[in-house]
């Protein structure tokens, strides 16, 4: 991503409370599914990236819980849930 430094700085402004487990998982075997690649462009936090072998990985830290990846990719490739209560992003302005 072209403006990755800016994005990391912006995510650093938000309040995040750590969860014990990642709340979104790429379903096993779906790492190279074309539907999953849509998340690389669509995620407003830039948390999805494609490696040199065409496999998509997800790093959940900084997730804004917006739901875009669930809509863009679908639930066949993503095991999607909200983080457990009292964890994840806590907006102060919203």
């Amino acid at each position, binding site marked *: 991503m072209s403006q990755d430094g800016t994005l990391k700085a912006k995510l650093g402004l938000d309040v995040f409370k750590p969860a014990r487990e990642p709340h979104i998982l790429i379903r096993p075997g779906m790492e190279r599914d074309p539907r999953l690649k849509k998340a690389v462009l669509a995620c*407003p936090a830039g948390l999805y990236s494609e490696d040199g072998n065409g496999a998509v990985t997800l790093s959940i830290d900084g997730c*804004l819980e*917006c739901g*875009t990846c669930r809509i863009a990719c*679908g639930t066949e490739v993503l095991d999607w849930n909200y983080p457990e209560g009292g964890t994840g992003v806590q907006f102060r302005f919203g």
Partner: protein
Amino acid sequence: MEKFEVIIVGGGLSGLSAAWTLAKSGVEVVLLERGDYPGAKNVTGGRLYTRPILEYFPGLLEKAPLERPIVREGATLMAGERHITFHYGDLEYSRDPRPSFSILRSRFDRWFAEEAENAGAMILPKTRVDDVIREGGRIAGVVAGGDPLHADVVVACDGVLSLLSEKAGLRGPGGSRDHAVGIKEVISLPPEKIEDRFNLEKGAGAAHLFVGEATRGKFGGGFLYTNRESLSLGVVVGIRDLVEKEPALAAPDFLDDFKKRPEIAPLVRDGETVEYSAHVIPEGGHGGIGPLCGDGILVAGDAAGFALNLGLTVRGMEYAMASGVFAAKTILDARAAGNYSRERLSRYETLLKGSFVLQDFESFREAPRILENPRFFRHYPEWLGAMFHDLYDVPAGPKKRLFPTLRKHLSFPELLALLGDLKKARKL
């Protein structure tokens, strides 16, 4: 066994409106919110149009922590090299009842939750709902944090994705054609700077929408709202266009590029970004409204698909608040009859149809199909921009006559296409 009369899932505007209304009527109501506080997970553009909902919240909104009353509207057609902007001001906007206010949801929803608690509602934050409880084909409660919580009726106010409606079997996951993503920065600025930059009296606010290059020709637009001590600056992009249409640009870059545009940069200069947020928005209009009730369950707010984009007005929050009130009224009726069947709860739909909520969705049934016209997002801003360029242009040497200059832009195929778009827009 934990048993309540009503369980509301989600502390957003529909859930809080339902909780407030029920608590005021003496109903035992518990609201489950997964954030640290109601508002912690909620995002808006945003502005709240208060006139449609004043009657449902007697004495409440007058004291609400809203940001600024909007007295000035702005709209910009943004082309690559140029833009056309108009402003609309109206003295009526400065008189009570004001038509709309900018709003920050974490602040507003937190306050609203306190009001609901004061009225007698029980609010349980930090509580994620994981499933519904079914008994004999009806919804009889929810599972939260591993514990079963029973209720006579459950209200799904869990937002645009509404995992609860899916678990209850009312609907499936949403599609990319019917949803957009909004991405926003809250940018801190002193009130005097806001008032100077936006030509506002002390305390008054402005709203501005941008179409065209703000989304690189994709479905959506940019927005800017003035809050008391900050600006809400963002872009909304249709998710299907975002992932399928050229140029392939990462979602965060839309906002970064928009912020650097010459129309925006001077307005946010020296401002300090204090929060970055994003949220999915329902864009399906009437066709995006899901099932509104089942046996033992009602659905309200974004969870039901209650958001309506008409280009110049983008609304969702007042539909959420009214639908929460109507869900509560439906429950009061069902409670009196001791009957929470789907048939009894379907009075909810009757109440919505008798109000501005479903009447608006019916009136603007065709809006999503008209507004998804790609010409609105690239061609028209560029075309009108080019015309104004020629009108304003003073070249070296003689200037061409105005009529032939305009005539050049108004070719037969151009006029034919324009006529076609106008014909479709008649359904608005």
